[in-house]
């Protein structure tokens, strides 16, 4: 059997822990181009790297210079990195521009990294939400409107531009070495806020397993929308203890109080006011379609994930 054709792949968010791992996996079999809006990433030999924001004009030059077969869009501006407007511009308008360029330059495959946050945390959520469940996150808070709109946008392209072969992945909490999302920053702290009387069930996936999931989604090319989560669950407060954090109880009643406390103490990076509901009500997703379609199963258990955070604290006490 001839070896599979070497493809040219654009990976966004290259400075992040997940993209780095995806690039490392793809590098041997494909020509990878790395971009990030934060900085020009140091890459292995043979991997062109650019510092550019997707919503700026200069971004198109990269498409002119390289004939991309596929785009893996991982880059995302987090809430703690900028204000709401800049986040919207980067995440939503940037993604729109990226997808338009994919259409213009006839890119034949796009894999989008979304988030389980789009489902919204509500007391009425049933467990094991399927991909068809309504996306209620923006109902809860305007701060998640960029996540939901990015998804809606991607879904329009998914149906309207079939040639893009779009795959949207909605992972649960991605954790592990180098990951700098809210949950990872939270579990890295010695003291983690918990809402008194609330410990919602949560799901966690190791960044290595998520990188493997992204690569599988790219290589097997089965367009669609998929939740990505292992078949394992743990309540938030147990996760906090297992990650070696001390609990910092935050009063949960009246409901405005934890939001006010988070705002006053500027906990935007790890316990932001707009995510409070995710520490109160569960958002448990059903990842069986992805597991069955792509033959993916995580190699790292919950214990592996938590032990990284425990060891990290033992090495560098804050």
């Amino acid at each position: 059997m001839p070896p599979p054709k070497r493809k040219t792949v654009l990976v966004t968010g290259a400075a992040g822990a997940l993209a780095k791992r995806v690039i490392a996996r793809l590098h041997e079999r494909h020509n990878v181009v790395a971009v990030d809006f934060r900085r020009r990433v140091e890459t292995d030999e043979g991997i062109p790297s650019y510092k550019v924001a997707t919503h700026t004009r200069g971004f198109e030059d990269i498409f002119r210079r390289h004939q991309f077969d596929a785009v893996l869009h991982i880059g995302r501006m987090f809430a703690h990195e900028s204000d709401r407007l800049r986040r919207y511009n980067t995440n939503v308008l940037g993604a729109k521009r990226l997808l338009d360029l994919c259409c213009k330059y006839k890119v034949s495959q796009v894999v989008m990294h979304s988030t389980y946050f789009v489902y919204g945390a509500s007391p009425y959520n049933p467990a094991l939400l399927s991909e068809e469940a309504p996306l209620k996150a923006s109902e809860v808070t305007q701060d998640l409107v960029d996540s939901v709109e990015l998804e809606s946008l991607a879904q329009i392209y998914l149906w309207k531009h079939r040639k893009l072969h779009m795959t949207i992945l909605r992972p649960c909490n991605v954790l592990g070495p180098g990951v700098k999302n809210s949950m990872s920053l939270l579990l890295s702290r010695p003291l983690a806020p918990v809402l008194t009387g609330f410990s919602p069930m949560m799901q966690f996936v190791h960044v290595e397993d998520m990188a493997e999931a992204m690569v599988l989604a790219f290589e097997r090319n089965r367009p669609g929308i998929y939740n990505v989560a292992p078949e394992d669950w743990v309540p938030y407060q147990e996760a906090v203890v297992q990650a070696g954090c001390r609990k910092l109880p935050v009063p949960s009643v009246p409901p405005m109080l934890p939001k006010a406390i988070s705002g006053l103490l500027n906990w935007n990076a790890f316990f932001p006011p707009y995510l409070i509901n995710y520490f109160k009500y569960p958002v448990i997703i059903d990842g069986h379609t992805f597991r069955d379609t792509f033959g993916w199963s995580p190699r790292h258990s919950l214990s592996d994930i938590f032990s990284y955070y425990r060891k990290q604290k033992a090495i560098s006490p804050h």
Partner: protein
Amino acid sequence: MPAHAMQQTSLKQKLTDRFVSAEIQGLLARVPKPLGSFGYDPWGYNEDAIKLGVPPVRWLYEHYFRVVAHGLENIPAQGRVLIVPNHSGQLPMDGLLIGYSMLTNPHGPRAGRAMIERFFPTVPWLGNWLNAIGGVIGDPVNCGRMLEREEAVVVFPEGIRGSGKLYRDRYQLQRFGNGFMHLALQHNAPIVPVGVVGCEETMPSLFNISPLARLLGVPYVPIAPPLPLPARVILNFGEPMRFECPVQSEDEVLARVDMVKKAIGGLIRKGLKERKKVF
């Protein structure tokens, strides 16, 4: 593991060692239920919480309500099943007692999953604790998912119409919702009807202060004893009913719901005949 994490574990362990007998441990080991690596399921069910919950419920079951259960052999030892009882007594004591009888069933212990009211998850501690002992918000998606995972689901089709009814309406079945029958048909699950006798007398309600209930955002505020009275409780589990044929209309669903309602009515009459003393 850091010191405080170990402290927590050891406190839980101490409580378990002190109050949870080997018999309870053995029962739980036999419950056919897959769990994640930390002993939880997607809805928050937790074996440790069940273990600690069993001793007080055992006291209520054996000494306070002196429950007699018949027909436990009708509950399948494994596989999906809907347990459908009548509902009464203001507080969901009937659910608790049915759950205990299922867990200690000598013909094969099962973890009963009860559908609970939608406002519970918003109540601190209580919401999580109810989830841990098997309660799940009464969403058809939850029920369907659990049946697909071969769980035993307890559904009260009368809902608050049954539990909140007045003492003068005791043992009169209220209107049944059709949801449980749709789920049984869709997921090909047998229905085990249950007649509960005695819970009506645990908390006789003379009047419902509905304006106050509306103000508090709760289903009802009864004029009733502040705590459940020690009435004797009789549980009659009927033979499993199977409804496999496809239905063409809602009327056909209703006809099947009526069959279950009749079966439960029969089991209630049987229980009332068996009962020699109310207290």
